[in-house]
């Protein structure tokens, strides 16, 4: 059972048929069937029922997107079922309600017998007691057992602050342990793979990592070796835990056993600010949370979205954030035109030279890494100038899981705004020859190094005006007559449209470096200046109104509003 046909599996809708049960004495109707980890309908479990009732049942090994293992025992709850008489009819109390038989040990009827909520299906009339004294005792005992060999090295553990063991110990545990023997010591700081570090002492053997890599990624590398107290997670001898999804096991690990080498000892998680964002490394557009502190991004983690990436993302995308904080980021406006090196001066100069340009003598290359709003504004500019436009394609290989062959995050956006045609990159040759024979005198480049796609330095040298906006320096930015420093996605708001046509919004996490400004902001100013507006009389920029205007004007986006996008995005008709 390697990969389900579509990845991530789309969860089926819960069945309409409901069962009536009681959770902590409160009646609730829950669907009889609910999607399992593969999205297929299975009988609803007690844990799902409790979640539906709004009662949290602590758990380690259970994960809604992984096969159920039922080995941590943390979700033990006391429960009862309607009592059946010898005539196979429910026994009824004096007041007419069905009599409930609490589950007890077979030969010790005074002792409650819990069941693991993650793997026990509910039955009609069932009563679950997640807050009963017996349940509490079971949790205390399970936690005490899990902590027997735990090193309690929270001060140096990266998981501290987001550790389920810490959280549940505080919430459900007891402060003392009856265990006085020396703890079993296991290997620490094991180099499991190129991106993963393992601390076996901290491991509580929930096997989430094993199930993930075996059942979801199909790279069966991890297992448990040794016996009893010496149980240890390990990669199979002679192999390294190395696939493109290994870092998901760090997120999955409820304790600090698996840690990311990249994030190891970087920053305590309680300092980090979480911002909803979207991964920019391919057209899948995995939903991510961006963790930053004081203007520095420390890590990406996947954000749940069943329509895009479930709870996962690839390692490549996850680690692709360092460039945002690079020292050589473009910070200042550079302009060789009169007006000076200020935003006002440079934009005015660009507007003046664009107004002087002959229609048809302008070309525009905009990256499919720009936001849809920026591409929309650029397409409006191009329409005014009757310019040739195109984007640069980036093709790679799809892996059948999350990585898309199209490595641009927003090629769909470039297509629907008309910046790119059906085959992106087809018009680049036309632009190159236009420059070569002198029909194209002005080139606007947003976020690409055009010297790599056939418009070399000698061609750029022929241009009258070269306006470039980018984030990092490259061969094209060096040639620019006017260079406008832009923002990375973490520094601005906007939307990308992924390969499946889902409009996904990302938010601003950190401030842009130096004088860099969000492209949409200055593009709107440029458009206004080009239309003859006076600087200083331009309407203040509003992302909301820009997006809503774009959604009204672009056919595929009708009906979508910024405010309604939410964290999950909305499907566009493209």
């Amino acid at each position, binding site marked *: 059972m390697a990969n389900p046909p579509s990845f991530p599996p789309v969860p089926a809708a819960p069945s309409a048929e409901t069962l009536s049960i009681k959770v902590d004495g409160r009646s609730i109707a829950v669907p009889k069937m609910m999607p399992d980890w593969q999205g297929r309908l299975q009988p609803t479990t007690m844990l799902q029922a409790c979640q539906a009732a709004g009662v949290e049942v602590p758990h380690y090994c259970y994960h809604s997107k992984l096969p159920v293992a039922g080995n941590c025992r943390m979700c033990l709850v006391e429960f009862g079922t309607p009592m059946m008489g010898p005539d196979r009819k429910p026994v009824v109390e004096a007041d007419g309600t069905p009599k409930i038989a609490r589950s007890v040990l077979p030969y010790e009827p005074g002792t409650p017998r819990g069941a693991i909520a993650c793997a026990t299906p509910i039955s009609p009339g069932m009563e679950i007691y997640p807050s009963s004294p017996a349940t509490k005792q079971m949790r205390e005992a399970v936690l005490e057992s899990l902590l027997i060999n735990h090193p309690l090295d*929270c*001060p140096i553990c990266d998981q501290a602050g987001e550790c389920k063991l810490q959280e549940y110990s505080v919430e459900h545990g007891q402060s003392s342990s009856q265990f006085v023997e020396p703890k079993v010591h*296991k*290997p*620490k*700081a094991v180099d499991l793979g190129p991106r993963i570090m393992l601390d076996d002492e901290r491991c509580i053997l929930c096997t989430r990592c094993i199930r993930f890599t075996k059942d979801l990624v199909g790279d069966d590398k991890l297992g448990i070796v040794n016996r009893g107290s010496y149980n240890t997670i390990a990669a199979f001898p002679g192999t390294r835990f190395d696939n493109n999804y290994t870092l998901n096991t760090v997120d999955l690990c409820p304790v600090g056993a698996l840690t990311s080498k990249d994030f*190891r000892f970087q920053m*305590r998680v*309680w300092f980090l600010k979480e911002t909803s964002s979207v991964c920019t490394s391919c057209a899948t557009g995995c939903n991510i949370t961006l963790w930053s502190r004081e203007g520095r991004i420390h890590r990406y983690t996947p954000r749940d979205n069943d329509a895009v990436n479930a709870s996962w993302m690839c390692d490549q995308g996850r680690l692709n954030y360092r460039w945002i904080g690079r020292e050589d980021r473009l910070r200042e406006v550079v302009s060789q035109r009169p007006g000076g090196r200020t935003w006002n001066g440079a934009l005015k100069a660009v507007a003046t030279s664009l107004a002087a340009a002959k229609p048809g003598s302008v070309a525009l290359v905009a990256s499919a890494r720009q936001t849809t709003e920026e591409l929309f504004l650029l397409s409006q500019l191009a329409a005014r100038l009757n310019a040739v436009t195109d984007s640069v394609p980036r093709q790679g290989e799809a892996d059948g899981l999350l990585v898309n062959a199209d490595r641009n995050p927003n090629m769909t956006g470039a297509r629907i705004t008309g910046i790119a045609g059906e085959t992106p990159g087809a018009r680049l040759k036309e632009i190159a020859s236009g420059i070569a024979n002198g029909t194209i005198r002005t080139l606007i480049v947003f976020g690409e190094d055009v010297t790599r796609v056939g418009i070399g330095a000698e061609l750029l040298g022929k241009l009258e005006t070269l306006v470039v906006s980018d984030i990092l320096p490259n061969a094209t930015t060096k040639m620019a007559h006017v260079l406008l420093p832009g923002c990375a996605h973490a520094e601005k708001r906007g939307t990308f449209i992924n390969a499946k046509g889902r409009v996904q919004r990302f938010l601003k996490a950190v401030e842009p470096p130096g004088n860099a400004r969000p492209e949409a902001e200055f593009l709107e100013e440029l458009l206004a200046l080009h239309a003859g507006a006076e600087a200083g009389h331009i309407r203040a920029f509003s992302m909301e109104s820009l997006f809503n205007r774009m959604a009204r004007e672009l056919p595929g986006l009708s009906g979508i509003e910024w405010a309604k996008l939410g964290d999950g995005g909305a499907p566009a008709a493209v």
Partner: protein
Amino acid sequence: MIVERKELSLAERLYLPAVVNGFSVTWRHFKRTVFEGRNAAKETSDGYYPEVPWKVERGYRGAPYLVRDQEGSTKCVSCQLCEFVCPPKAIRITPPGPDGPPADRDNAEKMPKEFEINMLRCIFCGLCQEVCPEEAIFLQKDYSLTGLSRAEMIYNKEKLLSLGGTHAGTQKWRHKLDEARAQEAFPIENRPAAH
């Protein structure tokens, strides 16, 4: 807890007895200082402050410094709890990161790359000492911190450690290491493996 407010008597409401009382108390002290020549400095010390340094009593909360253990290793493991709890945000820790220096003792894995306390911001509340799980930071007896610039008043790790001295407490990481060495089944390596 709700405390009942006591009903005031007429004398109390008039305030005058309190005024008279106040006069008698302040006069008593005034008289003692001016006419009997007694004052706090004379009675608790041998003289006045700059000439005669003040005697620091036990439990005094002076400047917070980092301490070393009895083997001379840094006790701090860069857990950043003090940075988190510090009310005026005077503490700033730079964690080692994946490539930073390993701890200067076996088995602790981690120590701060840089540890700065801005003594201009510090309010000497002692929360850092209270929160520290490693007994690595203590409010010590220094009460007169001076400097000629703001930068000089930001004490770095080196300075804090040299001022802090040694605190011989439980060596929990050494203890863990000894325990692990005693168990033959899993001989543990002293240092984190290379990346």
